[in-house]
Protein backbone atom coordinates (compact mmCIF):
# COMPACT_ATOMS: atom_id res chain seq x y z
CA UNK A 1 0.00 0.00 0.00
CA UNK A 2 2.20 2.77 -1.25
CA UNK A 3 -0.60 5.30 -0.70
CA UNK A 4 -0.18 5.21 3.07
CA UNK A 5 3.59 5.70 3.02
CA UNK A 6 4.16 8.00 0.05
CA UNK A 7 2.26 11.21 -0.72
CA UNK A 8 -0.08 11.00 -3.67
CA UNK A 9 1.04 12.88 -6.75
CA UNK A 10 -1.82 12.49 -9.19
CA UNK A 11 -1.24 13.77 -12.71
CA UNK A 12 -4.10 14.11 -15.20
CA UNK A 13 -2.83 13.97 -18.76
CA UNK A 14 -3.97 17.08 -20.60
CA UNK A 15 -5.62 15.38 -23.54
CA UNK A 16 -7.84 18.39 -24.19
CA UNK A 17 -11.06 16.64 -23.16
CA UNK A 18 -13.94 18.49 -21.57
CA UNK A 19 -14.26 16.21 -18.56
CA UNK A 20 -10.89 17.22 -17.09
CA UNK A 21 -12.44 19.81 -14.76
CA UNK A 22 -15.01 17.25 -13.58
CA UNK A 23 -12.30 14.66 -12.91
CA UNK A 24 -10.31 17.22 -10.94
CA UNK A 25 -13.39 18.15 -8.91
CA UNK A 26 -14.13 14.47 -8.21
CA UNK A 27 -10.59 14.02 -6.85
CA UNK A 28 -10.94 17.20 -4.79
CA UNK A 29 -14.03 15.70 -3.17
CA UNK A 30 -11.66 12.90 -2.08
CA UNK A 31 -9.24 15.60 -0.84
CA UNK A 32 -6.73 14.96 -3.62
CA UNK A 33 -5.34 17.87 -5.58
CA UNK A 34 -4.34 16.64 -9.04
CA UNK A 35 -1.97 18.30 -11.49
CA UNK A 36 -2.87 18.76 -15.16
CA UNK A 37 0.07 18.20 -17.50
CA UNK A 38 1.27 16.78 -20.78
CA UNK A 39 4.92 17.10 -19.81
CA UNK A 40 6.68 13.74 -19.96
CA UNK A 41 8.86 14.25 -16.88
CA UNK A 42 5.90 15.38 -14.76
CA UNK A 43 3.85 12.38 -15.84
CA UNK A 44 6.70 9.93 -15.19
CA UNK A 45 7.19 11.36 -11.68
CA UNK A 46 3.55 10.92 -10.72
CA UNK A 47 2.35 8.31 -8.24
CA UNK A 48 -0.89 7.91 -10.24
CA UNK A 49 -1.71 8.94 -13.81
CA UNK A 50 -5.18 9.56 -15.23
CA UNK A 51 -5.88 9.63 -18.96
CA UNK A 52 -9.30 11.27 -19.28
CA UNK A 53 -11.08 11.79 -22.51
CA UNK A 54 -14.08 13.24 -24.17
CA UNK A 55 -13.83 13.86 -27.87
CA UNK A 56 -12.62 12.14 -31.01
CA UNK A 57 -10.09 9.26 -30.98
CA UNK A 58 -8.07 10.59 -33.92
CA UNK A 59 -7.81 14.09 -32.45
CA UNK A 60 -6.80 12.73 -29.06
CA UNK A 61 -4.13 10.44 -30.54
CA UNK A 62 -2.73 13.34 -32.58
CA UNK A 63 -2.40 15.39 -29.40
CA UNK A 64 -0.69 12.55 -27.53
CA UNK A 65 1.74 12.02 -30.41
CA UNK A 66 2.52 15.72 -30.64
CA UNK A 67 3.57 15.63 -26.98
CA UNK A 68 5.49 12.34 -27.40
CA UNK A 69 3.05 10.64 -25.02
CA UNK A 70 2.14 7.80 -27.39
CA UNK A 71 5.50 6.23 -26.50
CA UNK A 72 5.65 7.36 -22.88
CA UNK A 73 2.24 6.12 -21.67
CA UNK A 74 2.75 2.41 -22.53
CA UNK A 75 6.06 2.47 -20.62
CA UNK A 76 4.55 3.85 -17.38
CA UNK A 77 4.94 1.62 -14.31
CA UNK A 78 2.70 3.45 -11.79
CA UNK A 79 -1.09 2.95 -11.69
CA UNK A 80 -2.75 4.48 -14.75
CA UNK A 81 -6.51 5.03 -15.10
CA UNK A 82 -8.10 5.60 -18.52
CA UNK A 83 -11.57 7.13 -18.55
CA UNK A 84 -14.09 6.84 -21.42
CA UNK A 85 -12.13 7.81 -24.55
CA UNK A 86 -9.10 7.30 -22.30
CA UNK A 87 -10.08 3.61 -22.11
CA UNK A 88 -10.59 3.36 -25.86
CA UNK A 89 -7.14 4.88 -26.55
CA UNK A 90 -5.51 2.06 -24.56
CA UNK A 91 -6.67 -0.53 -27.12
CA UNK A 92 -4.87 -1.30 -30.38
CA UNK A 93 -7.24 0.43 -32.76
CA UNK A 94 -10.42 2.49 -32.86
CA UNK A 95 -12.96 2.56 -35.67
CA UNK A 96 -13.49 6.23 -34.82
CA UNK A 97 -11.45 7.90 -37.53
CA UNK A 98 -9.73 4.53 -38.27
CA UNK A 99 -7.18 5.37 -35.58
CA UNK A 100 -4.14 3.42 -34.41
CA UNK A 101 -4.18 3.64 -30.61
CA UNK A 102 -1.73 2.87 -27.80
CA UNK A 103 -1.92 -0.93 -27.94
CA UNK A 104 -1.71 -1.52 -24.20
CA UNK A 105 -4.96 -3.50 -24.16
CA UNK A 106 -5.62 -6.10 -26.87
CA UNK A 107 -8.43 -5.64 -29.36
CA UNK A 108 -10.17 -3.00 -31.40
CA UNK A 109 -12.84 -0.47 -30.47
CA UNK A 110 -15.90 -0.49 -32.74
CA UNK A 111 -18.99 1.65 -33.26
CA UNK A 112 -22.26 0.93 -31.47
CA UNK A 113 -25.07 0.74 -33.98
CA UNK A 114 -28.33 2.35 -32.91
CA UNK A 115 -31.97 1.88 -33.73
CA UNK A 116 -35.26 3.09 -32.31
CA UNK A 117 -35.11 0.16 -29.90
CA UNK A 118 -31.42 0.55 -29.14
CA UNK A 119 -30.54 4.18 -28.87
CA UNK A 120 -27.06 5.52 -29.37
CA UNK A 121 -25.10 7.14 -27.89
CA UNK A 122 -25.22 4.67 -25.00
CA UNK A 123 -26.14 7.44 -22.59
CA UNK A 124 -27.22 7.06 -18.99
CA UNK A 125 -26.82 4.87 -15.94
CA UNK A 126 -26.10 1.19 -16.43
CA UNK A 127 -25.12 -1.65 -14.10
CA UNK A 128 -21.74 -3.32 -14.12
CA UNK A 129 -21.69 -7.07 -14.64
CA UNK A 130 -18.82 -9.18 -13.36
CA UNK A 131 -17.85 -12.12 -15.56
CA UNK A 132 -15.49 -13.47 -12.88
CA UNK A 133 -14.64 -12.93 -9.24
CA UNK A 134 -12.87 -9.63 -8.87
CA UNK A 135 -11.25 -7.83 -5.97
CA UNK A 136 -12.53 -4.59 -7.45
CA UNK A 137 -16.14 -5.75 -7.23
CA UNK A 138 -15.79 -5.85 -3.45
CA UNK A 139 -14.71 -2.20 -3.43
CA UNK A 140 -17.81 -0.94 -5.24
CA UNK A 141 -21.46 -0.72 -4.21
CA UNK A 142 -23.67 -3.59 -5.30
CA UNK A 143 -25.26 -3.03 -7.74
CA UNK A 144 -22.66 -0.66 -9.20
CA UNK A 145 -24.59 1.86 -11.30
CA UNK A 146 -22.26 3.91 -13.47
CA UNK A 147 -22.87 6.80 -15.88
CA UNK A 148 -21.98 6.08 -19.52
CA UNK A 149 -21.88 8.38 -22.56
CA UNK A 150 -20.29 6.93 -25.66
CA UNK A 151 -20.87 5.76 -29.23
CA UNK A 152 -17.89 3.40 -29.55
CA UNK A 153 -17.11 0.39 -27.37
CA UNK A 154 -14.34 -2.09 -26.58
CA UNK A 155 -14.70 -5.87 -26.94
CA UNK A 156 -14.86 -8.29 -24.07
CA UNK A 157 -11.66 -10.30 -23.68
CA UNK A 158 -9.29 -11.54 -20.96
CA UNK A 159 -8.58 -7.94 -19.86
CA UNK A 160 -12.26 -7.28 -19.13
CA UNK A 161 -12.98 -6.93 -15.41
CA UNK A 162 -16.59 -5.76 -15.70
CA UNK A 163 -18.91 -5.60 -18.67
CA UNK A 164 -22.14 -3.79 -19.44
CA UNK A 165 -25.03 -4.53 -21.77
CA UNK A 166 -26.67 -2.23 -24.26
CA UNK A 167 -28.01 -4.53 -26.95
CA UNK A 168 -24.59 -6.13 -27.06
CA UNK A 169 -22.23 -6.59 -24.14
CA UNK A 170 -18.93 -4.72 -24.11
CA UNK A 171 -16.14 -3.83 -21.71
CA UNK A 172 -16.98 -1.42 -18.89
CA UNK A 173 -13.82 -1.92 -16.85
CA UNK A 174 -10.54 -3.34 -18.11
CA UNK A 175 -7.28 -4.07 -16.38
CA UNK A 176 -3.83 -5.15 -17.47
CA UNK A 177 -0.84 -4.92 -15.14
CA UNK A 178 -0.77 -1.33 -13.83
CA UNK A 179 -3.38 -0.11 -16.34
CA UNK A 180 -7.02 0.23 -15.25
CA UNK A 181 -9.64 1.65 -17.58
CA UNK A 182 -13.29 2.63 -17.28
CA UNK A 183 -15.68 3.14 -20.19
CA UNK A 184 -18.04 5.04 -17.86
CA UNK A 185 -17.42 8.38 -16.17
CA UNK A 186 -16.56 7.78 -12.50
CA UNK A 187 -16.49 11.56 -12.01
CA UNK A 188 -20.22 11.62 -12.78
CA UNK A 189 -21.19 8.28 -11.24
CA UNK A 190 -22.07 9.40 -7.70
CA UNK A 191 -20.86 7.19 -4.81
CA UNK A 192 -20.01 4.23 -7.07
CA UNK A 193 -17.71 6.43 -9.13
CA UNK A 194 -16.06 7.88 -6.05
CA UNK A 195 -15.45 4.31 -4.83
CA UNK A 196 -13.67 3.51 -8.09
CA UNK A 197 -11.40 6.55 -7.69
CA UNK A 198 -10.69 5.55 -4.07
CA UNK A 199 -9.74 2.06 -5.21
CA UNK A 200 -7.45 3.45 -7.93
CA UNK A 201 -5.76 5.83 -5.48
CA UNK A 202 -5.14 2.94 -3.06
CA UNK A 203 -3.19 1.00 -5.70
Amino acid at each position, binding site marked *: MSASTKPLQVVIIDSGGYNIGSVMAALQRLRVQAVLSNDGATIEAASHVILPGVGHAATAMRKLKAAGLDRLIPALKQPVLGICLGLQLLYEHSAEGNTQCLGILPGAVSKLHGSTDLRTPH*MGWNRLQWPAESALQQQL*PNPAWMYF*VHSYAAPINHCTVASVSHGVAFTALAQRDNFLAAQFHPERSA*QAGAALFSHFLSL
Partner: protein
Amino acid sequence: MSLARRIIPCLDVRDGQVVKGVRFRDHQVVGDIVELAARYRDAGADELVFYDITASPQQRSVDVSWVERVSAVLDIPFCVAGGIRSLATADTILRAGADKISINSPALQNPDLINQLADEFGRQCVVIGIDSILADGHWQLRHNTGDPEHMIDSQRLTLDWLVEVQQRGAGEIVLNCMDADGVRSGYDLVQLAAARKLCQVPLIASGGAGTREHFDQVFCQADVDGALAASVFHKAVLAIPELKQWLHQQGHSVRTLTPTTDSH
Protein backbone atom coordinates in the same frame (compact mmCIF):
# COMPACT_ATOMS: atom_id res chain seq x y z
CA MET B 1 -33.21 -2.74 -21.81
CA SER B 2 -30.65 -2.45 -19.10
CA LEU B 3 -30.09 1.30 -19.02
CA ALA B 4 -31.88 2.89 -16.10
CA ARG B 5 -34.80 5.17 -16.87
CA ARG B 6 -33.55 8.58 -15.86
CA ILE B 7 -35.34 10.91 -13.46
CA ILE B 8 -34.28 14.45 -14.33
CA PRO B 9 -35.26 17.50 -12.28
CA CYS B 10 -35.19 20.62 -14.40
CA LEU B 11 -34.15 23.86 -12.80
CA ASP B 12 -35.23 26.97 -14.66
CA VAL B 13 -32.67 29.66 -13.95
CA ARG B 14 -33.33 33.38 -14.15
CA ASP B 15 -30.82 35.97 -12.98
CA GLY B 16 -28.84 33.34 -11.06
CA GLN B 17 -31.78 31.81 -9.16
CA VAL B 18 -34.04 28.84 -9.75
CA VAL B 19 -37.57 29.86 -10.75
CA LYS B 20 -40.74 28.10 -11.87
CA GLY B 21 -43.77 29.33 -13.75
CA VAL B 22 -47.01 27.78 -14.93
CA ARG B 23 -47.30 27.42 -18.70
CA PHE B 24 -44.13 29.49 -19.07
CA ARG B 25 -45.55 32.52 -17.20
CA ASP B 26 -45.58 34.04 -13.73
CA HIS B 27 -42.19 32.91 -12.49
CA GLN B 28 -41.56 32.50 -8.77
CA VAL B 29 -38.15 32.12 -7.14
CA VAL B 30 -37.78 28.62 -5.67
CA GLY B 31 -34.15 28.70 -4.44
CA ASP B 32 -30.40 28.96 -4.89
CA ILE B 33 -28.90 26.99 -7.79
CA VAL B 34 -26.06 25.19 -6.01
CA GLU B 35 -28.16 24.44 -2.94
CA LEU B 36 -30.95 22.89 -5.02
CA ALA B 37 -28.46 21.01 -7.20
CA ALA B 38 -26.89 19.43 -4.11
CA ARG B 39 -30.29 18.56 -2.67
CA TYR B 40 -31.36 16.76 -5.86
CA ARG B 41 -27.99 15.00 -6.09
CA ASP B 42 -28.50 13.65 -2.56
CA ALA B 43 -32.08 12.62 -3.30
CA GLY B 44 -30.88 10.40 -6.15
CA ALA B 45 -31.62 12.48 -9.23
CA ASP B 46 -29.94 10.85 -12.22
CA GLU B 47 -29.15 14.07 -13.99
CA LEU B 48 -29.99 17.75 -13.78
CA VAL B 49 -30.92 20.24 -16.46
CA PHE B 50 -30.44 23.96 -15.97
CA TYR B 51 -32.39 26.20 -18.33
CA ASP B 52 -31.49 29.87 -18.34
CA ILE B 53 -34.94 30.93 -19.45
CA THR B 54 -34.11 34.59 -19.89
CA ALA B 55 -31.14 34.00 -22.15
CA SER B 56 -32.66 33.45 -25.57
CA PRO B 57 -35.22 36.28 -25.66
CA GLN B 58 -32.69 38.78 -24.38
CA GLN B 59 -30.07 37.64 -26.93
CA ARG B 60 -27.47 36.88 -24.29
CA SER B 61 -25.77 33.68 -23.25
CA VAL B 62 -25.51 32.11 -19.82
CA ASP B 63 -23.29 33.49 -17.09
CA VAL B 64 -20.88 30.58 -16.55
CA SER B 65 -19.76 31.28 -12.98
CA TRP B 66 -22.61 29.23 -11.56
CA VAL B 67 -21.84 26.38 -14.00
CA GLU B 68 -18.43 26.01 -12.38
CA ARG B 69 -19.91 26.09 -8.89
CA VAL B 70 -22.50 23.46 -9.82
CA SER B 71 -19.87 21.25 -11.46
CA ALA B 72 -17.70 21.30 -8.34
CA VAL B 73 -20.48 19.92 -6.12
CA LEU B 74 -22.23 17.55 -8.53
CA ASP B 75 -21.16 13.94 -8.99
CA ILE B 76 -23.96 13.29 -11.47
CA PRO B 77 -24.17 14.64 -15.02
CA PHE B 78 -25.81 17.94 -15.85
CA CYS B 79 -26.88 19.82 -18.92
CA VAL B 80 -26.99 23.57 -19.48
CA ALA B 81 -29.45 25.27 -21.83
CA GLY B 82 -30.22 28.82 -22.75
CA GLY B 83 -28.87 31.22 -25.32
CA ILE B 84 -26.11 28.94 -26.62
CA ARG B 85 -25.80 30.17 -30.18
CA SER B 86 -22.12 29.75 -30.99
CA LEU B 87 -19.30 27.23 -30.75
CA ALA B 88 -17.43 29.61 -28.48
CA THR B 89 -20.26 29.76 -25.93
CA ALA B 90 -20.67 25.98 -26.03
CA ASP B 91 -16.92 25.60 -25.48
CA THR B 92 -17.03 27.92 -22.46
CA ILE B 93 -19.92 26.05 -20.83
CA LEU B 94 -18.48 22.58 -21.46
CA ARG B 95 -15.12 23.76 -20.17
CA ALA B 96 -16.84 25.08 -17.02
CA GLY B 97 -17.92 21.49 -16.35
CA ALA B 98 -21.29 20.93 -18.00
CA ASP B 99 -21.61 17.45 -19.49
CA LYS B 100 -24.03 18.50 -22.19
CA ILE B 101 -25.42 21.62 -23.77
CA SER B 102 -28.99 21.92 -24.93
CA ILE B 103 -30.05 24.23 -27.71
CA ASN B 104 -33.54 25.17 -28.78
CA SER B 105 -34.26 28.54 -30.42
CA PRO B 106 -30.76 29.02 -31.89
CA ALA B 107 -31.04 25.63 -33.61
CA LEU B 108 -34.26 26.72 -35.31
CA GLN B 109 -32.75 30.03 -36.39
CA ASN B 110 -29.56 28.37 -37.63
CA PRO B 111 -29.93 24.59 -38.07
CA ASP B 112 -26.31 24.27 -39.23
CA LEU B 113 -25.31 25.07 -35.66
CA ILE B 114 -26.33 21.50 -34.72
CA ASN B 115 -23.90 20.05 -37.28
CA GLN B 116 -21.15 22.38 -36.14
CA LEU B 117 -21.62 21.56 -32.46
CA ALA B 118 -21.71 17.80 -33.13
CA ASP B 119 -18.55 17.98 -35.27
CA GLU B 120 -16.69 20.06 -32.73
CA PHE B 121 -17.73 18.46 -29.42
CA GLY B 122 -19.19 15.09 -30.40
CA ARG B 123 -22.89 14.37 -30.65
CA GLN B 124 -23.07 13.03 -27.10
CA CYS B 125 -22.72 16.62 -25.83
CA VAL B 126 -25.43 18.01 -28.08
CA VAL B 127 -29.00 17.96 -26.77
CA ILE B 128 -31.78 19.51 -28.80
CA GLY B 129 -34.69 20.95 -26.87
CA ILE B 130 -38.00 21.05 -28.71
CA ASP B 131 -40.99 23.05 -27.50
CA SER B 132 -44.09 21.68 -29.14
CA ILE B 133 -47.73 22.74 -29.09
CA LEU B 134 -50.86 21.30 -30.71
CA ALA B 135 -52.27 23.77 -33.23
CA ASP B 136 -54.60 23.18 -36.18
CA GLY B 137 -54.45 19.44 -35.52
CA HIS B 138 -50.65 19.24 -35.81
CA TRP B 139 -47.79 19.32 -33.33
CA GLN B 140 -45.88 22.45 -34.14
CA LEU B 141 -42.77 24.10 -32.81
CA ARG B 142 -42.55 27.24 -30.77
CA HIS B 143 -39.37 28.97 -29.85
CA ASN B 144 -38.12 31.69 -27.54
CA THR B 145 -40.51 30.18 -25.05
CA GLY B 146 -38.82 31.72 -22.02
CA ASP B 147 -40.69 34.94 -22.60
CA PRO B 148 -44.27 34.91 -23.91
CA GLU B 149 -43.91 38.36 -25.50
CA HIS B 150 -41.06 37.17 -27.68
CA MET B 151 -42.52 33.80 -28.57
CA ILE B 152 -42.35 32.98 -32.24
CA ASP B 153 -44.34 30.49 -34.29
CA SER B 154 -41.57 28.74 -36.19
CA GLN B 155 -43.81 27.29 -38.95
CA ARG B 156 -42.27 23.87 -38.53
CA LEU B 157 -43.84 20.55 -37.64
CA THR B 158 -42.45 18.92 -34.52
CA LEU B 159 -41.95 15.45 -35.96
CA ASP B 160 -40.20 16.74 -39.10
CA TRP B 161 -37.81 18.72 -36.95
CA LEU B 162 -37.22 15.70 -34.70
CA VAL B 163 -35.96 13.71 -37.70
CA GLU B 164 -33.89 16.60 -39.07
CA VAL B 165 -32.04 17.32 -35.82
CA GLN B 166 -30.98 13.67 -35.58
CA GLN B 167 -29.63 13.78 -39.14
CA ARG B 168 -27.73 16.92 -38.22
CA GLY B 169 -26.08 15.37 -35.16
CA ALA B 170 -28.32 15.67 -32.10
CA GLY B 171 -27.22 13.20 -29.42
CA GLU B 172 -30.35 13.48 -27.32
CA ILE B 173 -33.75 15.12 -27.64
CA VAL B 174 -35.85 16.73 -24.93
CA LEU B 175 -39.43 17.03 -26.13
CA ASN B 176 -41.33 19.57 -24.08
CA CYS B 177 -45.04 19.27 -24.66
CA MET B 178 -46.23 22.77 -23.89
CA ASP B 179 -49.91 21.94 -23.58
CA ALA B 180 -49.02 19.78 -20.59
CA ASP B 181 -46.27 21.92 -19.05
CA GLY B 182 -46.62 23.01 -15.45
CA VAL B 183 -50.16 21.74 -14.93
CA ARG B 184 -49.25 18.30 -13.54
CA SER B 185 -51.93 16.40 -15.43
CA GLY B 186 -49.54 13.89 -16.98
CA TYR B 187 -47.06 13.69 -19.84
CA ASP B 188 -48.35 13.95 -23.42
CA LEU B 189 -48.18 10.20 -24.02
CA VAL B 190 -49.57 10.30 -27.56
CA GLN B 191 -47.09 12.88 -28.78
CA LEU B 192 -44.14 11.28 -26.98
CA ALA B 193 -44.98 7.82 -28.35
CA ALA B 194 -45.15 9.28 -31.86
CA ALA B 195 -41.78 10.95 -31.32
CA ARG B 196 -40.29 7.75 -29.93
CA LYS B 197 -41.01 5.91 -33.19
CA LEU B 198 -38.84 8.44 -35.04
CA CYS B 199 -36.05 8.69 -32.50
CA GLN B 200 -32.81 6.67 -32.56
CA VAL B 201 -31.14 8.82 -29.91
CA PRO B 202 -32.24 9.07 -26.27
CA LEU B 203 -35.58 10.85 -25.88
CA ILE B 204 -36.48 12.73 -22.73
CA ALA B 205 -40.10 13.56 -21.89
CA SER B 206 -40.84 17.01 -20.52
CA GLY B 207 -44.01 18.70 -19.35
CA GLY B 208 -46.89 17.50 -17.22
CA ALA B 209 -45.53 15.29 -14.42
CA GLY B 210 -47.78 15.41 -11.38
CA THR B 211 -47.95 11.94 -9.86
CA ARG B 212 -45.78 8.83 -9.70
CA GLU B 213 -48.22 7.13 -12.07
CA HIS B 214 -47.34 9.71 -14.73
CA PHE B 215 -43.73 8.50 -14.68
CA ASP B 216 -44.84 4.87 -14.89
CA GLN B 217 -47.09 5.72 -17.86
CA VAL B 218 -44.49 7.66 -19.80
CA PHE B 219 -41.94 4.86 -19.44
CA CYS B 220 -44.45 2.10 -20.30
CA GLN B 221 -46.43 3.83 -23.03
CA ALA B 222 -43.92 6.19 -24.65
CA ASP B 223 -40.74 4.19 -23.90
CA VAL B 224 -38.77 7.37 -23.21
CA ASP B 225 -35.24 7.14 -21.80
CA GLY B 226 -35.80 9.76 -19.17
CA ALA B 227 -38.50 11.92 -17.64
CA LEU B 228 -37.87 15.54 -16.83
CA ALA B 229 -39.93 17.42 -14.29
CA ALA B 230 -39.75 20.64 -12.31
CA SER B 231 -42.63 21.80 -10.12
CA VAL B 232 -43.50 18.33 -8.89
CA PHE B 233 -40.03 18.13 -7.36
CA HIS B 234 -39.52 21.79 -6.43
CA LYS B 235 -42.82 21.86 -4.55
CA ALA B 236 -42.13 18.48 -2.93
CA VAL B 237 -45.24 16.89 -4.39
CA LEU B 238 -43.05 13.86 -5.07
CA ALA B 239 -39.80 12.84 -3.36
CA ILE B 240 -37.28 11.21 -5.70
CA PRO B 241 -36.21 8.32 -3.39
CA GLU B 242 -39.83 7.18 -2.90
CA LEU B 243 -40.63 7.73 -6.57
CA LYS B 244 -37.70 5.55 -7.64
CA GLN B 245 -38.51 2.88 -5.09
CA TRP B 246 -42.07 2.73 -6.41
CA LEU B 247 -40.95 2.67 -10.06
CA HIS B 248 -38.57 -0.17 -9.17
CA GLN B 249 -41.51 -2.07 -7.66
CA GLN B 250 -43.44 -1.52 -10.89
CA GLY B 251 -40.64 -3.35 -12.71
CA HIS B 252 -38.79 -0.38 -14.18
CA SER B 253 -35.02 -0.31 -14.37
CA VAL B 254 -34.08 2.63 -12.16
CA ARG B 255 -30.85 3.53 -10.40
CA THR B 256 -31.39 2.86 -6.74
CA LEU B 257 -29.38 4.71 -4.16
CA THR B 258 -26.70 2.61 -2.58
CA PRO B 259 -25.85 2.95 1.08
CA THR B 260 -22.68 4.93 1.48
CA THR B 261 -19.69 3.09 2.94
CA ASP B 262 -18.17 6.39 3.98
CA SER B 263 -18.21 6.65 7.77
CA HIS B 264 -17.58 10.37 8.16
